């Protein structure tokens, strides 16, 4: 890598390290794996930064992180890569207790645990939308799926997570 590309990497790619870590952490469900994944992704990004011509550096880095995470998990033989639509069966929202009660600090661990029970494709759209605040179009480019798929998967992911949290709340509330 020459100096120009290195400077470009530092200026455009490195600021998105936090987002890259959040995505890798969510996909791998492990701090250590997330660090490995992001490091691999950074190395790839360094190698290919010269060929990166886009304007959305964050989306570009997140795509690399995602691909790195998927190929690692595929190599590890993870079964959850399959998108199981049955898993996404929605709970009846009208029966749910108010979510506000779950926002307390001590409940965050529970949210994380439930989030990690979602299939990977659901976890990633949730993160890209809710945390990274990306548009459907940007998410579609990253996960290489149509915008309609992003929308429906995001809806199912929210419903599923919401249902899991309601269930957990019911179990912990006598």
């Amino acid at each position, binding site marked *: *890598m*020459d*100096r120009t590309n*290195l400077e470009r*990497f*530092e200026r455009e790619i*490195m600021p998105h*390290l*936090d987002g*890259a*870590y*959040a995505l890798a*952490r*969510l996909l791998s469900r492990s*701090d250590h794996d*997330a*660090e490995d994944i*992001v*490091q691999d992704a*950074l*190395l790839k990004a*360094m190698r290919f930064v010269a060929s990166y011509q886009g304007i959305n550096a964050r989306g570009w880095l997140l795509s690399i992180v995602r691909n790195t995470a998927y190929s690692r998990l595929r190599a590890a033989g993870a079964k959850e890569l399959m998108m199981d639509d049955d898993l996404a069966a929605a709970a009846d*929202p*009208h029966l*749910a207790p*108010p*979510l*506000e009660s*779950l*926002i307390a600090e001590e*409940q*965050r661990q529970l*949210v*994380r645990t439930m*989030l990690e029970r979602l299939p990977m494709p659901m976890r990633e759209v*949730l*993160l890209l*939308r*809710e*945390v990274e605040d990306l*548009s*459907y179009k940007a998410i579609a480019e990253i996960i290489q799926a149509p915008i309609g798929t992003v*929308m429906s998967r*995001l*809806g199912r992911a*929210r419903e599923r*997570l*919401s249902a899991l*949290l309601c269930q957990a709340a019911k179990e912990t509330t006598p």
Partner: protein
Amino acid sequence: MTCDELLSRLHPYLDGELTPDEMRTAESHLALCASCQAQVTRYRALGATLRATMPARASAALQQRAHLLLRDARQHTKRRRWVTAFAACAAVALLGVCLWQFTAGREGEDAELRDVAALHLRSQLPGHLIDLTTSDTAVIAPWFGRQLPYTPWTGVLGRECVLLGARLDYCDHQRVAVLVYRHAGHLISLITYPSDRRGDHPRILDTRDGVALCGWTQGHLQFYMVSDLAQDVLEHISHMVPPPSA
């Protein structure tokens, strides 16, 4: 707008992906429908919870690794720049040496050609042409052998060239053997001397001071043929000197 219609667009509504018109329609329904508004509130709270749950920053370990990665890349780039700079300097130096050698070689060759031309022209001054007048190579060869530390080529050049005799001369800082021939009224000097040029060199054809020159190496011997003949005729005759193996 019914509740079903709103719920079918709930997620694009939450994500701001509806058109401005659709947004207004949805908001007008939400303003009147507590049940749908409760859904919106629920999911907005879910989003906020997710944001609070996610790590806001890369872990310290990852930040450290990224830092090291960048440092390595910077050093590598720096080293590469040194290597590039060094390679560039070396290339320039090498080019300089090559140019110098080339120029020196050209100058050497040029001086040699001038020397050879002068030798031929000088030989035509009265009394300088021939030391040993004979067309018998069996006489010339031992005569050369007594006077020179090397064995020059001695021979005839076809039927159209008449061997007039032999001469010793001085060229390229040494005593050299010269055979003198006549071809159709033109004198030809064939100069032979040891050379450190080895291997096959392309035949040099040139003109100096109005005389044609043809030079080549054969084994360890340098040959020059000089005459006021046309260059192409001279080259033709030069090929009559048999290769060393013959």
